[in-house]
Every structure is written in structure tokens, then in C-alpha cells.
């Protein structure tokens, strides 16, 4: 074994009635990796991610996250992961500091840890002037960076990001990815879904989901070689051309 696998999925499936949202997907993610999860709207990215986070029970298949089985120990998984959902989910009627304090407290950080982490985080995001202001008033780009920082406040082994840069302008997206790299350097594994294909280039490995199945999984350069494409856009269109599900 050369690398430690922190996420293992084997034929992971989720059905809602007749509809198979995620259809027997299998993949492994190594520690410290930036793993990109690409797919059109409705391809099943979010559902797959929610199963790995212990938010949704798989219908069949197997998966373990941070060494814990998703069926038996969803609450143990939750101690070891961070999660940033598609919807902005910090409390808009609390200040930046209060949000940090709340999530730090929920994850069981000591008061000193909360204080230190809070200061570090606010300095890193350069939000000193806004620290005591309500989150409601922040621009979207900053909100997303703050949400990401709060998601890793307890220094989890893995952080799941569900379309973290949706609706964010290019400059802020670039800054966001810098944050992701800094986090990965600390040894935190990043599992990120996106539909910005340029962002796929920033990932160590990329899986492309079409109609609930993983149709390709490789490094960006490997994918481009296989599909004889000049960029990820071309790779994606070749794969997604045959998709039957319409976007939602």
C-alpha cells in the first residue's frame, strides 16, 4: 500500500422510488488529494456527496469515510469531516465571530481553541473590520470563503465542498482555490463538486458523472490524453453528449 485511502466507495447506489440518482459508483480517494467530482446538473453529484457525509443513507453498495462505514457509523464520520453545502449555510443573523464560536463549540473545541482559530481565520480572510458585523451584509465571494473556513474549523480529515464557487466571480473563484490548496497542503483531503470545467484542471484527479454513473476517472492530463482533447471542456462534452437526464 503506497497511499492511505480516506474515502472508499464500492457500487454505492441511491434510489428514490424508481429513480436511481446514483448508480453503483466506485472510487477511492487518497489522503491529501484534491478530488474533483464533475457532472451536469442532476447527474447525482450532490446525492453521492451527501451519502459520504452521512446525511443520506445509501440504498445499496458500500462506502467508508475516514475509516468508518457509512451505514453503521455516520455520526463517527461526522466528527472527521467538514461540509460546505450548495446553499449558504452560516447564520446570516449572527456575526462572523458568533458563527465561528457556534460551529467551533458544536465541534467541541475548547474556548481557547475557538478564540485562537477565530483570530487566525479572520486574519487569513482579512475580515478584521467585519468580524463583529452580521454575515448577512457580506458579499457572496467572502461568504463562501468564510463558509469554507468554518467548515474546516475543527481540522477534519476530509472536507466535502458542494459547488463552492457557484455564482462567484472569477477573481473570487481564484482566491477560493488558493484557500483550497492551502488546506490540502495541511494534509486535509478535498472532495469538491463543480460544474466549472476550468476548475477541474486544478484537481489532482477528476471523476465525471453522467446519469448517475461515473463515466471517467483520471488525472486531468490523463483524461485529456484518453479522449484526445485539448482541454477539460472537450472531455466533458464528449462524455456528456449521450446524457439522457436533462438538467434541473
Amino acid at each position, binding site marked *: 500500500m503506497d497511499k492511505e485511502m480516506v474515502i472508499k466507495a464500492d457500487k454505492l447506489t441511491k434510489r428514490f422510488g424508481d429513480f436511481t440518482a446514483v448508480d453503483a459508483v466506485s472510487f477511492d480517494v487518497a489522503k491529501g488529494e484534491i478530488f474533483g467530482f464533475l457532472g451536469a446538473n442532476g447527474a447525482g453529484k450532490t446525492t453521492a456527496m451527501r451519502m459520504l457525509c*452521512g446525511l443520506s443513507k445509501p440504498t445499496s453498495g458500500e462506502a467508508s469515510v475516514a475509516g468508518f462505514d457509512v451505514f453503521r457509523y455516520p455520526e463517527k464520520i461526522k466528527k472527521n469531516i467538514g461540509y460546505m453545502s450548495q446553499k449558504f449555510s452560516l447564520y446570516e443573523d449572527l456575526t462572523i465571530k458568533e458563527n465561528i*464560536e457556534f460551529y467551533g463549540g458544536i465541534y467541541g473545541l475548547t474556548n481557547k481553541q475557538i478564540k485562537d482559530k477565530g483570530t487566525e481565520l479572520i486574519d487569513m480572510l482579512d475580515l478584521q473590520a467585519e468580524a463583529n458585523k452580521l454575515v448577512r451584509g457580506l458579499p457572496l465571494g467572502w461568504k463562501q470563503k468564510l463558509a469554507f473556513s468554518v467548515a474546516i474549523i475543527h481540522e477534519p480529515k476530509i472536507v466535502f465542498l458542494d459547488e463552492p464557487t457557484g455564482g462567484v466571480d472569477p477573481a473570487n473563484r481564484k482566491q477560493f482555490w488558493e484557500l483550497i490548496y492551502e488546506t490540502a497542503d495541511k494534509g486535509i483531503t478535498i472532495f469538491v463538486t463543480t460544474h466549472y470545467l476550468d476548475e477541474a484542471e486544478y484537481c489532482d484527479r477528476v471523476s465525471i458523472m453522467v446519469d448517475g454513473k461515473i463515466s471517467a476517472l483520471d488525472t486531468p492530463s490523463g483524461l485529456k490524453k484518453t479522449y484526445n482533447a485539448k482541454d477539460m471542456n472537450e472531455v466533458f462534452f464528449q462524455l456528456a453528449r449521450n446524457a439522457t437526464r436533462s438538467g434541473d
Partner: protein
Amino acid sequence: MRTLMFLLRKEFRQIFRDPGMLRIILIMPVIQLLVLPRAADYEIKNINIAIEDYDHSVVSQQLTNKIISSGYFKLVGYHNDYNKGYELIERDKADIVLEIPVDFEQKLIRNNSQDLLVAVNAINGTKAIIGNGYLSSILMDYNKEIRMKWLPPTRFNELPTIDIVSSNWYNPNLVYAVFMVPGILVLLLTLIGGNLSAFNIVKEKEIGTIEQINVTPIKKHIFIMGKLIPFIIMGLVVFTLGMIIAVVVYGIIPVGSMLLLYLFALVYLVTLVGFGLLISTYSETQVQAQSLTFFFLIIFNLMSGLFTSIDSMPHWAQIITRFIPLSYFIEVMRMIVLKGSHFHDVAYQFTILIIMGLVLNTWAIINYRKTT
């Protein structure tokens, strides 16, 4: 326990930051307690009466005066044509028509008896029945007066009558507010406990913050407690405000123990907040939660014994009231505040409320799912 503290701190920050919430908590009890007991009064006044006087005698005049000066009736028509009176009822201007026949005075003197016709508009049933009752007692009274005046006083009253003197215990002057205020206090706690709490978790579902909570290792019962406790505290604040108004404005000083009242308020709030949280675990949107709570609270209010007596409901309805927490607390409030009942008098209601509270809260915890 430390997690709970963080949850509570967050909830209270949000509550105090929401001006709408504060207004509800502070202004609602004041308005309801000042307005409702005065407005929603059982005592029927302003009954519209039309008198059709075919007699136009001294006696019929006296009778008319007596009716009007009673204070309950408003004369809306005075003619000598029954059809005119009937028309007033048709047009909803009159509630009662009293017909005084021709030769009323003469026949009364000569025959010692005379019939009067009373026609009542029974669309508003309560008003009709009570109005009819008032009118009958005025007529009886008048009847007595006439006898006293006309019949020579005898040593032995030829018609023995039974005089009933009733004394009203616990509310000697039958003051309506004394009966109503304790009930409205319960209604307030119901609104705070059952209604506001129902929206809370749903609101987090709608804005998406619940996902972020569900992905943390927080324990379900801690989360529910974090939602339960703030509403209980708010409820107790409202209860205190209400008690102050009851004492200061209405002079209702509880006869029984204040401690017992607060104990019941606490248990009742736990039950009702549990109910609200249960609803919010079943609802996906605030509209759903609103419809559900509205449905239940209407039933709770109308069947609780607040406005109508449970004892006079049909048997099947009485069985339903057994499942309504409101009915126990209203009963107990009136017992403690007005009668000064002790704990052993209300132990049954206490036990039932505790059981209901346990069931509802456990149900809410079970039904709140972090993993779907």
C-alpha cells in the same frame, strides 16, 4: 452539556436580534389580556327589542319603561302593529318582538291573568335565549309588583313561593374577567409554546442551515433541547407578564400557590413546545408548519373549555378534550387561581401533562432525522 450552551447562546442571540419576535413576546400578552376579557364577554347587552303595544294603557307603558330601564334592551320600534315588529326582525334590526294585546290592562285586572306574545329571532342562539330569559324575568318581576300593589296584603300569602338565593363561590360577583383571564393566560402560553416553536426548525430547513447542523456530530436530543429551552424561558417570561397584568389590571390575585402555578406553566410549556417541535420535524416549509399548527390550535382553543364548558359537550367530544393539553391546564389554572387548590387536587392533571410532554418530546427527537 457544553454543546447545549453553545446552542442556547446562538438561539437567544437570534431571538433578541429579531425585532418581530420581541414584539410578539412582549406586546401580544399585553394586548390579549387587556382586550379579550373586556370584549369577549358572555353577558349579553344591547338586545334590540320592538314592542307592539295594542293596549296603550298605563300598565303597558309601565311595562315598557321597566324593560327599557333594565339596561339590557334597546327599543328599536314601538308601534301597534305586529307586522312592523316582524319586519324589523326580518331586516335583522330587532332580536325580540313583544306584543302587548288589546285590553291588556283591563283583562289583567278583571281576569287576573293575561297572555303576552314574545317572538325571538333565534339566528344568534345565545342572544335569543339569554334575551328571552331576561325578558321573562322582567315580566315575572313586574307580575309580582302588580300583585303586591293590587292584592290586599294578607297575613298568609295565598300563593306560596320559593325564593331562591344563590351565592356564587370563588367568583362572587360573577365577574367575567375573573373567569377569563386565567384561561387567556393559558392561551398565550399555547401560542408561544406551540406556534413559535413550530416555525423554528422549519426555518432552519428552509434557509439550509439545518444541513450544516446535521453534518456535525451533534446529538439529536441535545439539538432538540437547544430548541426547547429558549421557548420555555420565553413562555415563562410571558406568563410572568400576564400574571402581573392579571394582578394590576384585574385585581386577580391567585388564591393558590404561585409556585404551583409556575410548576404547571413549566410542565405545560414543555408539552406544547414538544408539540410544536414535532410539527416542525414533519414539515418541510413554514407554510406547512403554519397550516398544521393552525389546524390543531383552533381545535385546541375551541375544545379546551376556555369558551364553552367541557361538561356540556357531547360524550364523544369530551373524550377528544382528554387529549388536548390545553383543557388540563385551563382547568388547573382556574382551580389554583380562583379556588386555591393544592397539589394533591391537581395531581391527576399534572401526571397527564407530564406523560403528554414526554411522549411529544420523545416523538420529536425520534422523528428528527440527521440522516435521511
